[in-house]
């Protein structure tokens, strides 16, 4: 039984179809990667699944419930969590507070308790704090807990975002290019972290440009090009698919040119 089911999802911006008729499913503990050239619509797809964009067509269901158009904070309550390609860190808050914000759903209570600093609130906050320190240790940021997040390096912020997303104890985690801008060692760590998470039963939906990483850890790959799904299957099948190779060769030359220029 799949946890996340995406059916015929599509959206247009100003008459241009950004994503069209994309369907796939993710089961608990499974790692599904969405790959494709730049501008293929991967992040747009993520934004629709996580409730940031309202899909124009199609549906998303979570554990059998239709959640199309459900706002992000409600999806968070239902166990869907994500990270962002262009980091969305709470820059002015401390590293610890960033992760604590991830515990919002478990630590929140009445606003009176917050204003009066009642024992119940303090208890909930202390529990969240303990959990947050654990998570920071897990992503090796425990020594930076009291620093302002905006002062961290890019790689550290990537890990901080993952820690924050994990604070929700999600059933499904959407990771948008978690290894982008990371060095080989950091990429290796993220690789391990993802594997661990999926082993613990969390479903992972991944967008990533590092093909070695994708091929190594994915159970299933969905390939997008120009907003449409052009292939899907196990890593070995997808990597041999002529349509995929064509889409990638076409863009790799362009990217090469970009890099040179």
């Amino acid at each position, binding site marked *: 039984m799949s946890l996340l089911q995406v059916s015929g999802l599509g959206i247009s*911006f*100003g008459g241009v179809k950004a994503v069209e008729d994309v369907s796939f499913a993710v089961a608990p503990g499974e790692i599904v990667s969405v790959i494709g050239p730049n501008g293929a619509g991967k992040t747009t797809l993520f934004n629709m699944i996580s409730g940031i964009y309202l899909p124009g067509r199609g549906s998303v269901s979570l554990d059998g419930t239709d959640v199309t158009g459900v706002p992000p904070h409600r999806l968070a309550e239902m166990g869907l969590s994500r990270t*962002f390609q*262009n980091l969305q860190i709470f820059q002015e808050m401390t590293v610890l507070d960033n992760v604590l914000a991830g515990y919002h759903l478990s630590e929140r209570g009445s606003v009176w308790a917050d204003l009066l600093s009642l024992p119940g609130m303090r208890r909930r906050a202390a529990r969240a704090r303990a959990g947050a320190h654990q998570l920071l240790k897990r992503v090796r940021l425990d020594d930076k807990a009291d620093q302002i997040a905006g002062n961290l390096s890019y790689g550290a912020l990537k890990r901080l975002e993952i820690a924050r997303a994990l604070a929700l104890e999600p059933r499904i985690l959407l990771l948008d290019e978690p290894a982008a801008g990371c060095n080989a060692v950091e990429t290796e760590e993220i690789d391990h972290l993802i594997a661990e998470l999926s082993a613990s039963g969390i479903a992972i939906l991944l967008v990533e440009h590092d093909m070695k990483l994708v091929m190594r850890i994915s159970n299933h790959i969905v390939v997008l090009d120009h907003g449409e799904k052009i292939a899907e299957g196990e890593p070995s099948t997808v990597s041999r698919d002529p349509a995929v190779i064509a889409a990638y060769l076409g863009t790799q030359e362009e990217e090469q040119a970009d890099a040179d220029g």
Partner: protein
Amino acid sequence: MDALLQFLFSGLTVGAVYALVALGFTIIYNASDVVNFAQGEFVMLGGMITVFAFDAGVPLPLAAVVAILVTAAIGVALNKLAIEPARGAPVVSLIIITIGASILIRGATQLVFDKQLHRFPAFSGDDPIRVLGATILPQSLWVIGGALAVFVGLWVFFTRTLTGKAVLATANNRIAAQLVGINTGWIMTLSFGLSAAIGAFAGVLVTPITLVSYDVGVALALKGFAAAMLGGMGNPKGALVGGLLLGCLEAMTAGYVSSQYKEAVAFIVILAVLFVMPRGLFGAKTTERV
């Protein structure tokens, strides 16, 4: 029917002023993404400086020119001294800066001049002209005609001259404009000078009808903003239509509902536009990316 026409005339007159203030907002907003809350002070300055130059014996046309030039210089100074140093600051900071500038200008005007209400003679006398049972002041025709002339002049400037096209290009995409060699800093200076001059011109036109004092700016800024929003922020055509429409709505409210609460019309329009059609009548569509 006569009453309706009468309200329409007075609505178009104040509406033309709102349109000019809205145009000032639009020009600066397009060049810099800044909403300049000091825009109303330019109108006030135009009126006040003319009054005092005229009282000092300067002929009215010359006094008006002096007022427009001085106000334009103040607009440029505002950009150089307060907006440019805060480039890239969050919106909240920019709001506070331009409101601060507006209060500063107000305070300075009150010191340099005074706190009294002033006027100078209308350009073509005060004998009302009868039109279909209603009357209109010759000065109203000056206001409406002057506003239309500014809009036409600006349209020619933007579409026919190289500098005008550079302003439009900057509004469209600042970085691309810089890449093709447009000096966007100069465009900003020009925009502040231009919109200050337009505001002052509106002040010169309308002072014989509405009178002027140091504190008329805030209300004008708000109504100009309401007009700009009604028309669609950043669109000169919208500024014109929005301004005239707001002026007429206000005049009708004053005539048929309550003159005390006509001031509320602008805010009701702002709120209505925000919730019903946030992009205004002629606004551009934008999408947010994450």
